[in-house]
C-alpha cells in the first residue's frame, strides 16, 4: 500500500482523497505516511549530488547559425556547500547596498585571474596579502579624477567576502574599494564599487538637491546629477 500512497502523494492528493481512492481510513494512510517519512530522515545523510558544470568547448567552429554568439566564457565548476549552493563565484565584483543612513552592506567576489595577477606581481601567495576595505566619501566630487572628500580603511579578516560598514554618514555618496595594503604603504585597489548613496535621516534646511532637481526638471542636463543605483547592466560592457 505504501507504494500506492507515495505515488498518489506525488500526484498531489490529500490524505483524505488517498484514503477514498484506496478504500481505507484516513488514519491508516497517515500512519503509513508518517512512518515512511520518519524512515527517510533516519537514513544517514547522503551528500547532495551536485551536477558539476561541464566545461564546454566554444561553438565557433560548429556554429553556422548567425544569431548565436559563441560562448567563449566557460561557466566554471564552483565549490558547493551542503545545500548545493556555490560558495564563491568566479567573478570580479564588489557591490555596496544601503542598510540604513549609517550603514552599508558590501560583498565581493574575486576571480582566479585577479588572484593570479596579484600573486605574480608581488611574487607571493594570495593568503599572505593584507586585505583591506577602503571607504571613500565621493559626494559631489569626481573620484575618477582622483578627487575624494575623505577616506578610511581597515583590515579584513581572512576568508571574508562581505562586510557591514558602520558607521557611515547619511546623505553621502560612497565608493568602496577592496584592495591590498602593501608593505611600502600603498593601498592598491583591486575591486571598486559603483557609487552608492546613503539616505538622509532628517529634514533638510539648506539641501544640495534643489538645484540639480531643477536642472533635470527643466531639461538642462542629459542625465540627472545624482546617484541612481539601478543602472542597466551590460554583459558586453567594454566591448565595442
Amino acid at each position, binding site marked *: 500500500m505504501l507504494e500506492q500512497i507515495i505515488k498518489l502523494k506525488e500526484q498531489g492528493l*490529500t490524505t483524505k482523497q488517498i484514503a477514498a481512492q484506496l478504500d481505507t481510513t484516513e488514519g491508516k494512510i497517515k500512519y503509513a505516511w508518517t512512518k515512511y517519512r520518519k524512515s527517510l530522515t533516519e537514513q544517514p545523510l547522503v551528500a547532495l549530488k551536485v551536477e558539476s558544470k561541464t566545461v564546454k568547448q566554444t561553438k565557433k567552429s560548429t556554429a553556422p547559425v548567425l544569431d548565436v554568439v559563441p560562448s567563449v566564457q566557460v561557466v566554471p565548476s564552483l565549490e558547493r556547500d551542503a545545500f548545493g549552493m556555490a560558495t564563491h563565484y568566479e567573478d570580479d565584483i564588489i557591490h555596496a547596498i544601503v542598510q540604513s543612513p549609517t550603514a552599508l552592506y558590501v560583498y565581493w567576489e574575486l576571480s582566479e585571474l585577479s588572484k593570479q595577477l596579484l600573486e605574480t606581481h608581488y611574487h607571493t601567495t594570495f593568503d599572505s596579502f593584507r586585505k583591506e576595505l577602503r571607504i571613500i566619501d565621493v559626494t559631489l566630487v569626481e573620484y575618477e579624477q582622483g578627487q575624494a572628500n575623505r577616506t578610511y580603511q581597515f583590515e579584513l579578516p581572512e576568508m571574508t567576502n562581505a562586510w557591514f560598514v558602520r558607521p557611515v554618514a547619511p546623505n553621502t555618496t560612497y565608493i568602496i574599494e577592496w584592495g591590498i595594503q602593501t608593505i611600502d*604603504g600603498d593601498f592598491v585597489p583591486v575591486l571598486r564599487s559603483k557609487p552608492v548613496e546613503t539616505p538622509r535621516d532628517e529634514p533638510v534646511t539648506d539641501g544640495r538637491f534643489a538645484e540639480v532637481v531643477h536642472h533635470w526638471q527643466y531639461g538642462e542636463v542629459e542625465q540627472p546629477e545624482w546617484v541612481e543605483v539601478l543602472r542597466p547592466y551590460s554583459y558586453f560592457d567594454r566591448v565595442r
Partner: protein
Amino acid sequence: MELERGKGREAMRKGYFSLVLHAHLPYIRHEEAHRLEERWMYEAISETYIPLLWEVDRLSRPLGWTVSISPPVIEMLADPLIQERYIEHIEDTLRLIRQELERELAQKERDALLFYQDRYQDLLNTFLHWEKDLNRAFRHYKEQGYLDLITCTATHGFSPHMLSEQAARSEIQTGLNCFERHYGFRPSGLWMPECAYTPGLDRILYEEGIRYTFVDEHSILNADPSPKHGIGAPVYSPHGVALFPRDQIISGKIWSSVIGYPGHPDYREFYRDLAYDREWDQIAEFMHPEGLRYDTGLKLHRVTGETDQKDYYVRDWAWQRTSEHAADFAQALGEHLDAHQGQDFPPFLVTAPFDAELFGHWWFEGPDFLGKAMERLEDQGIESISPAIFLERHFQDIDTAHVAMGTWGRKGYAEVWINERNDWMIRHLHQLEKRLAGIVARNRHQDALTVKAKRQLIREYLLAVSSDWPFILDGQTTAQYAANRFREHILRFEETERRLDAEELTVEWLDDRYREYPFLQDSDIEPDVFLTAHDYYVAVKREKSWNTDAILLFVRQYDASDRPASELARRLAAAGENVYVVTEHLEAYRFEEGVHVYGVQVTGLPLVQTYNQLAALNLAFLRQAQALSKIVDFAVIHNFNMETASAAQAIAKIKELPLVSNVYDVESERSPDRSGGLVVALKRLEGDALRQSAVVYLEREESRHGVEQEYHVEKKPLRFEENLEKPYQHVTNPKKNG
C-alpha cells in the same frame, strides 16, 4: 452627534482621506498536498479577502479605496488546485465545528463556535458565488466603481538592493502583465514592495506607465528640497512619479497593537487557537498528517487584557466595539484634517496604506471596522478618494523633490532585508541578474525552445527575488521554508541554464518545471527584458568574424615610434588577422587601420610607489582583457612591456594561452647602477615573464646577454625583425595541443 447624510454632504470638510490596502503573500502553491505554508493563503481568504469583499458589497457605493493585489495572490486565487483545497479546508473546518458542538461546552464557548459555523458557511457561499475565483469579485467591484485596483511587482522583490535596472524592470513589467491578463487593464499606480523607494526607480516606473506609488512618511519629510506641504500631499519624484506618503499618526491608530484599536479586550485574540486547547486525539484528524499541530482558525477567545487567562470571545461585544472605534476614527480624522485646513493647492490629504492582511487576519474585526469607518467618514463630511482621482484633480499642485532611499520597514530603511541573518542571499541574486544578461545576449535564437527557456529562467529569478524570503529569515519564523525556497529557485535556475548551454533542454522538461511552480504564464514574461541595446549590438550587429583566433597585444604606449607594436598590429590586420590592442590611453576605443585599440587608464586616488602603480596598471589591462574575452576567442597574447607583464602572465596561465614577449631592453640595462627594491622586483617580474614565454623576441641584439645570462631563459630568444612576417609561427598553443 449624527448628521443626516444629505446634511453631511453639504458640510463637506476640506481635505481628503485615502485608504490603500495591499494584499500579498509569497507564491506558496505546491503540487504536494498538506504543505503548511499553503494555509497562509486559506487564512488570508477566510479572514481578510472575503470579509473585505463583504463590506464592499454591503456598502455598494464608491468607497475611494485602492486595493493592491500582488501577482502571487492573483495567481493563487485563480489556481484551481488552491480553489479545490480551499473548499476542502472550509469543509474540514465546518466538520470540526460540528464535532466540537457535540461536546459539552460552556455557553460562551458554544456561542463562539456557532458564530464560526455561520461564518464559515458564509465564506463557502461567497466563494462559490464567485465561482471559486475571487479575482472575479474584485474585478466586479472595480467595474462597479466601488474601489480602485492596482497591483505590485511580480514577486515583491526589494528593488533598492537589485544590481541592475533590468531586474527592477522585470519585476515591474511582469507584475503589470500578470495583472492585466487577469483584470483586463493596466493600472497607473503600482505598490512598490515594502514601500521601498530609491532614486532612479522612478525612471523605470515612469517608463512602464506608472504615475504613482507609495512611500513612508519620513521619505517625504526628508525630501530635498523640503516639500512645502510635508506629508499633506504627494510629491513628484524627479522622473515624474507621484509618491504618496503614509500618514503615521492616522495609520498608527489602526495598526498599533499598543496605541491602536486592535488591542482592545473585546477583540479576538490572535494567539489562542482551539488546536492548542484540545488533546491531540480530539483534533488529530484535522491536524497535519505528520502529527504537527497547527492553527485551526477557530480562535475562541478575546484579548481580555494583559493576562494569560483569556475569556471567551463574544461576537456581539466585538461587533459593537467596531462601531465605537469607527466613530472615534472618523472623529480623529476629521480633527486631523481641520488642523490642516489652512493648506491649499492641494488640500490636505491623509494617505493610509496598509497590508490588507492586517484587517481580518491580524485584527479579526478589521474589515467590519473599515466598512463602518467609511460610513462615519460620510457623516463627518470627509471625502475618501483614491490617489488616481487625487492626481486627476491636483496634478498641477505638486512639488518635485529628490527623495532618498527609504522603506516602511523597521527603522525606515533596509535593516529587515539586509542583516546578518539573510545577507548570504544577495550575491546569488546578483549573479542571476548578471547571468540572465549574459544568457539573453548570447542566445539570440528566436526559436520556441530558447524563448521558453529564457522565460523559465526569468521565472526562477523572480521566484527567488521575493522580499518575503529575507523578511522571513529576519523574523526567524518558518525560516527553513524561506531559505529552502530561495535556494531551490537558485538551483533550478542553474540547472536550466546548464541544460540550455549544453543543448540538453526539451520543451517537455521545461513544461515539467513550470508545472511544479505554475506562476505567471509565459506571455507575462518578456524574454529579453534583461537585454540592453548595447548587448544586442555586440551580439547581433557587431562583425562576428572579429571574434575568432584573435591576437591580444599589450602595449603601454601604442604610438611610441621607437617600438614596432603599432607597425606589427597594422601588418597583422592587413593580413586578415583579428588584432586587439590594449594600451594606456584616454580614448576607450578606436578602430584604426583594421586594429581594435582599447584604451585603459588608472583612475581614483593616486598611488605613491612605482611598483604599486604598475599593479594598478596591470589590473586595468586585465579588466579590459576579461571584458573582451566574453566574446573574443584569443589565440595568443603578445606583451610589449615589462610594465604589463603581470597581467599578461596571469592571462596566459589561467586562460592557457601562449605568451609572446617583446624585449627592447631589460632592467639591468635600464638601471645599471641601481639595486633597490624596485629594481629587484622588476627584474624578478621580467625574468618570470620571459621564462614563461613561448617565444621571446629581441628588438635589440644588445639585450640578448641579459635575457640569456641574467634571466636564464632556456628558449633561444629570436630577433623580432627577422620574424615580422610570421611572428607566431614558433608558437605552440597549449590550449589547442592540450
